């Protein structure tokens, strides 16, 4: 089941092409990460999905009901826009009630929903405060709260954690994870560690096109890859690695002191650990950390740029 699908979507702003035949399929119940550089078209894609922008060509299917229209999918799809300002003179609670009513919530359901989102964004005590009196982080939390009113099926979040303090980032990230399987979340972010911690599907978008879309496990090769962070240079010869694990591909990023191993199907991460770590210790390489997978950041960079780090392939 697909919650949101882009088929060959093109969007131009004058002469500039923001989206150039974008294809995207966001499965129902997934937490889907949209990764791309500035101007790649992530924000444009989200605004197109909810009808804030008009597409030039292609098609967008929202919740299997065709193109978005508030009369059809209103209340089932919400958006957290990136740089939009809330009405400064409205009070927080009143504003959320207004948004809730517009998306069809009434009576106890409305009250419960507003209470819930205020609770988990830690804004209950600011319910009566005018928006203009809130700090930047608090305003951001109000914008997050509005996106979760009424348990929508599809939530589009553009840089949801930017501007939040570390504690709130952790809290909101945990709350987002709880939505997995119940609601579909499309998250655009430049913080790839955040996406790696949250998402089960990712797509790389550059110059308005999809470069890659897959499950996070497949993208970072979680089942077939290990990253070892070393406390200094790699002193173990590469041949020792390829002799120990036949078929292994390895890369060493000297700037980060990260050794990444991609191993064949017959090897499990635990078996690779048991084989490689003693070799590294014997060659006096200090081991600081061992991670499953290659890392989203590394995969994104290698998918969008020519490789610059030395690579060893058997």
């Amino acid at each position, binding site marked *: 089941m697909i919650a949101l699908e882009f088929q060959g979507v093109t969007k131009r*702003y004058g002469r500039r092409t923001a989206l150039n035949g974008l294809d995207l399929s966001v499965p129902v119940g997934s937490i889907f990460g949209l990764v791309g550089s500035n101007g790649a078209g992530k924000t444009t894609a989200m*605004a197109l999905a*909810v*009808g*804030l*922008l*008009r597409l030039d060509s292609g098609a967008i299917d929202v919740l299997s009901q065709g193109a*978005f*229209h*508030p*009369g059809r999918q*209103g*209340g089932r*799809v*919400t*958006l957290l*826009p990136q*740089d*939009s*300002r*809330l*009405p*400064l*003179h*409205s*009070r927080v609670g*009143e504003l959320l009630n*207004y*948004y809730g*009513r*517009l*998306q*069809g919530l*009434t009576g106890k359901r409305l009250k419960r929903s507003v209470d819930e989102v205020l609770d988990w964004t830690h804004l209950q005590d600011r319910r009566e405060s*005018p928006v203009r009196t809130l700090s930047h982080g608090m305003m951001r939390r109000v*914008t997050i709260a*509005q996106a979760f009113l009424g348990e929508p099926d599809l939530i589009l979040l553009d840089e949801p954690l930017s501007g939040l303090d570390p504690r709130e980032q952790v809290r909101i990230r945990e709350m987002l994870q709880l939505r997995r399987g119940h609601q579909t979340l499309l998250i655009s972010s430049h913080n790839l560690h955040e996406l790696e911690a949250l998402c089960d599907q990712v797509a790389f978008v550059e110059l308005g096109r999809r470069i890659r879309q897959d499950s996070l496990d497949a993208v970072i090769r979680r089942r077939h890859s290990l990253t070892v962070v070393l406390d200094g240079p790699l002193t173990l010869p590469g041949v020792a690695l390829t002799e120990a694990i036949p078929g292994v591909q390895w890369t060493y990023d000297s700037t980060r002191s990260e050794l990444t191993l991609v191993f064949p199907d017959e090897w499990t991460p635990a078996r690779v650990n048991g084989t490689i770590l003693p070799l590294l210790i014997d060659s006096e390489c200090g081991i600081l950390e061992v991670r499953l997978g290659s890392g989203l950041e590394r995969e994104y960079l290698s998918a969008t740029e020519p490789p610059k780090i030395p690579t060893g392939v058997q």
Partner: protein
Amino acid sequence: MTRGGSVGQVAQQELADSIRSRRVWVFLLLYLAGSVAATILFLNILQKMETHLVSTLGLNPANEPGGVTATLWKSEAFQRMMTQLIGDRKLAESLLSIPPLALFWGWLCLTFGPLLVTLTSSVRIAEEVWTGSVRFVLFRTTRLTWVTGKFCGQAVQLLLAFLLSALGAWVVGAVRMNSFEPLPTALALLVFAMKAWVYGLAYLGLATAVSQMFASPNVASAMSFGVLIAVGMIHGAATFVKAVAWRPVLEVLDLLTPGGHRLDLWRPDASHLVPALVYLLVLAFGYLLVGHLVFRRRDL
């Protein structure tokens, strides 16, 4: 929620937001202060004229303005003269049955109301597009519903402004006028307030239409004033330019401006007044929809 319900929600929010932002208070005080100041000015001029008349004709002097005017207003000779001047007996009788204060206030509202509407309403939609706050709303309701709600919220604000302004004029009259008739004046002011409101709605439609077309509040404001001037020029040309070949075109264009229906608002008979009110309402929503033709296709 039904479309009507959503329109009501948006209108309510628009009004509440205006009240909290103090914008509505500035708006209301502007109307009140303008109306009170103009009424005082009117009564001062009236008093001076009466004083001059009294000394010229050797009548009993009156300390407060309006006494001589009221007597004159009700005299048969003056009414006969006005009928001949206006050329329409019914209209003359109707105008002479209205207390002079209400008559002046009605003229004031019909003349300066559009300016104040343009001043306060032309930025409302453009402002929300500019700040991006519209992005929290337009996936929850349709663009037409939102725009209509905004219009309705502004319309309520406009009605409050006219009613407050009428109250201000009534109080000034009660304090300053010699032969003040409280009830007839209040009724006449109320009737004019309603007429001025419907007239103002047409200009509100115009301002809302322009506001839908531009993302920058400053540009929307400037363009609204431009449109206000253009509409005024069309009406002026239709009124004063008589002997030209394209006069029929001018007349049709005039019907598409609020000014083209202004004179009918002074007429007492329903056969003129009702069509004028209907025309003005149609124009208000017509302008709104023309603006919406652009707004519905816009990137927000």
